[in-house]
């Protein structure tokens, strides 16, 4: 748990450290393919959440299923 808290604090520091200085190497106008719906991590949450439920109920491992980000940055 302590590791998770430290990681969270580190990420917050990174977030606060002037991210505008980084020049994006993939320009907004180059993200057409990434914006395609077929590139979504989780196209249908209602279906994928059900499948995770199926696995979590029958296997010992759980968590870190990801997909929270979206990541397209298309706005």
């Amino acid at each position, binding site marked *: 748990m302590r590791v*998770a808290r430290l990681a969270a604090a580190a990420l917050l520091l990174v977030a606060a450290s002037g991210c505008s200085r*980084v020049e994006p190497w993939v320009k907004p106008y180059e993200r057409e393919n990434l914006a395609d719906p077929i590139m979504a991590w989780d196209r*249908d949450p209602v279906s*994928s*959440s059900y499948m995770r439920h199926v*696995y979590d*109920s029958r296997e010992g491992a759980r*968590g870190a299923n*990801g997909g929270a980000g*979206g990541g397209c940055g298309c706005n």
Partner: protein
Amino acid sequence: MQLIRAAAVALLLLPATALAAVLPDDRADLLYHYYDGGGVTIDGPSLLVRKKFAEKYAVNASYYVDMVSSASIDVITTASPYDEERTQYGVGFEYLRGKVTYAASFSNSNENDYNADTASLSISQDMFGDLTTVSLIFSRGWDDVTRRGDATFEDTVDRRIYGVDISQIATKNLVLGLSYETITEEGFLNNPYRQARFVDVDAALGYSYQAEVYPRTRTGNAISFRGRWYLPYRAAIQGDYRFYTDTWEIQGHTAEVSYTHPLDDEWTFDVHYRFYTQNAAEFYSDLYPREDFQNFLARDKELASMQSHTLGFGVAYEFKSSMLSFLNKTTLNLRYDRIRFDYDDFRDLRVTGVAPGTEPLYTFDADVIRFYFSGWF
């Protein structure tokens, strides 16, 4: 299983609610789910609705039902088949401010012997020219456990989940993802009906059963990596890997590869394969040498050494209907998965007349179907 079920479904609301910088589209999904495997049939509806306001606020609501008819191997060998129903609802709220999205959600899962409340908070930020999205997630769960036919039994589970998720645009055709999660649980962590097996030379079968005893704490850590690549033609391929380890000494590896192929503007096809393997929990045994052999006793196949293989297919069809002209986009979707579960140290006790501990190893196949309608408005 009930414990994990409650935690997992509540947590799974988060990915749908933690999108950064752009709030999710206004959308409604109505799904029918069906599971049939290992003597257990589960089906029911699920509904998810999301709506945003002024491009800054969004709300979502979900409703989910499991109708269970169970004659699983555990039930057949130590109890009687049963039917039950579990209902879950969830609500969520999101607020977008600049490149930061704040999200809060609550869910309740209820069945006749189990109640789970879960509250979650998350914060997501786009950074580095919107190439990177970082999400921090915290979730807290409070469960109440009871046992049918035993008014004296009542216990609780306290659950906390800490998560970090990073999504990174690597190239104009490749997105990478990294997730880390710690899950701590404290309380009554086993199924109050399940039993452990021990050698009993006086019994007709050569063995008897006693109540399971689990540790009252469990902490698990999971880390996963994924990448999704837009192929030279319009299609996508994704690879995922997850490593899991916990204080019960279970280690699990999950690997998955999937392929998405659209056809014209109307059809989208998916195919995927998933592999999972784990070793047994430190205190697990299919057959203990004697009664009360050790402090902790478990014969839950979820804690056994096991593997699963999944092969799945999906098809989505986008259509237009004059009756649904108030919707911007409508799709019908069908997904089917076939899962094979193989156990290395969980034996099939439907087979009798052999020496205890020499029964064949248990294995079963499951069919999983989701049929759903999605509408964007």
